[in-house]
């Protein structure tokens, strides 16, 4: 499974567990407008660490955190390189 599809699957699962209504997940959508709150993101990052074996938030040198969904996916894809 690609990093993109892993992320999108986990986003849907976390939203479902937390009873959150998800926005349509285009690359342009701002993370804060996805329908997920910070607890959801915290859980998402933990799940992705389990699934992918890394956590770019803890290891990233730069502090340019992702703003949009596209940034978020690219953040993980870059860290995987």
């Amino acid at each position: 499974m690609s990093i993109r599809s892993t992320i999108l699957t986990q986003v849907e699962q976390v939203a479902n567990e937390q009873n959150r209504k998800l926005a349509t997940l285009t690359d342009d959508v701002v993370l804060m407008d996805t329908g997920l709150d910070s607890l959801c993101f915290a859980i998402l990052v933990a799940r992705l660490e389990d699934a992918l074996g890394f956590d770019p938030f803890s290891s990233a040198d730069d502090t340019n955190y992702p703003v949009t969904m596209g940034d978020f996916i690219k953040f993980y894809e870059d860290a995987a390189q």
Partner: protein
Amino acid sequence: MLDCLSGAPDGAPRSLYGAEFTVDLNDLALRSALGADPRALRSRSLLIHTRDALSAAVALVELDGAARRIVLCPPGIAPDYLPAIATTAEVDGVLCGAEDTLAGLEGLPKIVIDPATLAKPRAPRADAVPTEWILLTSGTSGVPKLVVHTLGTLAGAIASTGPLAGPLVWSTFYDIRRYGGLQILLRALIGGGSLVLTDASEAIDEFLARAARAGVTHITGTPSHWRRALMGSAVHGLAPRYARMSGEIADQAIIDRLRACYPRARVAHAFASTEAGVGFEVDDGLEGFPQELVGRAGTAIELKVEQDTLRIRSPRTGLRYLGAGAAPLQDEDGFVDTGDVVELRGGRYYFVGRRGGIINVGGLKVHPEEVEAVINRHPQVRMSLVKARKNPITGSLVVAEVVPVSGLPERPLGAGAEHLKTEILDLCRAALAPYKVPASIRIVSAIDVTPSGKLTRVEA
């Protein structure tokens, strides 16, 4: 304490049952197991460092009233800590077995204690000296603190209970060298009963089988001890009249399970700690304790709640910590802060956790114990441990490990385990705020318990 040994209420024989042999208390009243004349020990500070609990129990009987100070070493204490403990307590001799080597205490004279051979007739005793009893706290890290007690502070809860009718055979999952176990040793000795002692090398079911053979009537342990015992079968071989939990929060699930296991027993949970002594006991079958216990005036045991933690003032608390520069054990008014956070709901106080054990999820506080209490309600759950997982967004997340009733599932990732996880999460979501719900649950075959019978917690 020697005076307490002879004579059971009904003249029955009384014994201390160790894992390997048994000491007859009537014999111990007449003959000594000590390799020294007790009359020469009056000014001594002696460390009791024996391999087995039975030797330590006999040493306590021999030395109370004979030595100035006794320091009780729990099993498994790190040898690295012994020199510091010996220095702080001004130890000038060690009670141990003939074969024992004393790593870290080599320079100190050795006094042999051998309960297998009660050889020497007791010499007439000189006047008893007031003996200080030094107990070690079961802290998670660093050198244990040394808490000063006397037989009076330790036995305070026993006098008020009074003797009970019929043969009394006590047992406890605790080692008698720790506060919880020592309470039971003293109850057995002072109250006229016998005691079945645990041995660290013995499996829990073997110990319970031995307790059953001795006809145990009263038995105590931590909720974790009991959860582990209830995973085995030997627990059903006992028919105690009294079963008690202390040392950790007794949640409703473990109270209900213990009552179901022993329908004829009085099942109680007590609050006690090395520093605060025995506070109170509750036996109404409900978790927590009635609000009326707090703030009562004119009682021997006074409770108050300040900054959310329970404070106790009573004649049973430790007197002080030993050592220059040690923090005061009591506040200016004589209250001991237990560090246990309580919450008042509907006329009852509930324990929610330890002040130092809070998990911080994005600024919101979670006590692991409150989450465990919800998880433990699931009928397929035997034990659980909730802890923090580091997280870059919220600082921490709550995660859980769970031991199912039937032990390890054949395939940990099988459908049964997934189904159980889903049900536990549903239970948590119904009862807890979202940030308290575990972000992940791991099904495990066992959860570590410390030598003092409590869940092993890493400071959150």
